């Protein structure tokens, strides 16, 4: 998505990304970024929380309006939970048994094979 933002921007269309993966987006380098420190999958706000979704969009629009230069990141003040320990779980090797790792590898090979088939069809 960062590549798309850059492409539009280079052609004169101002963009803002709403996202949850701060390091990935910033590593690529994008013009404007509203970062929500939420689990991946919640770029537009907290589930079933209209207020949070409205605020998230409003912040993104303000970033669009007011970013002074490229690589502007604004972090939403919203927190997923008071306890931040959810951040330790995502793909964290320290929290997986060898059996879980083997299972993940099997799943990933399966996913890749399905994706390859689908890509070749399209």
């Amino acid at each position, binding site marked *: 998505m960062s590549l798309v933002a850059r492409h539009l921007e280079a052609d004169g*269309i101002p963009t803002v990304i709403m996202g949850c993966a701060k390091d990935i987006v910033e590593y690529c380098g994008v013009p404007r970024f509203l970062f929500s420190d939420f689990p991946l999958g919640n770029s537009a706000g907290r589930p*079933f929380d209209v207020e949070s979704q409205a605020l998230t969009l409003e912040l993104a*629009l303000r970033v669009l309006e007011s970013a002074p230069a490229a690589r502007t990141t604004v972090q939403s003040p919203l927190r997923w939970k008071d306890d931040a320990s959810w951040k330790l779980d995502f793909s964290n090797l320290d929290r997986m048994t060898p059996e879980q790792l083997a299972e993940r590898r099997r799943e990933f090979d399966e996913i890749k094979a399905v994706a390859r088939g689908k890509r070749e069809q399209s």
Partner: protein
Amino acid sequence: MDFAPEHDVPIPYLQRTRDYYLRLGYDNPYQWAHFAEVPFAPLRVPLARARVALISTAAPFQPGAGDQGPGAPYNAAAKFYRVYSESSEGTPDVRISHVGYDRVHTEARDPHSWFPLAQLQRAVKMGRIGALTPRFYGAPTNRSQRVTLQTDAPELLRRCREDGADVAVLVPS
């Protein structure tokens, strides 16, 4: 002093996924896109008069493509590999079972948490933005950066131009 815990920082996805796939036995880590230069186009129209394009990585629900949630396991069969557009009126059924969202801490039950079309429609009604483009756009989550750069991004730009977009809101899921 009551500092926040050390782990209370944005998740280091680059390092986490690199370590993860190396440990799984894949020894060619994914090379994330990385640039020194970043383009910047100043806003030329006030948002209250601007036509806004929504670009999402969510996939239209595909009957017959397996479990697409909520709570579905990663479903590569629900992926799409070509840019698509659908009407930005109404409430399209778009899912995220085809991407690696955080399946431990979220179940993808509320599309509004990854697809802000309803909020954008509300912003039009309130006069916060001028209008939406008549269509929103789907960006394939292609691991090939070459395809993204040479095919998908130009196609998304073409459609945005065709629909008169002044600005774009991009929402990866």
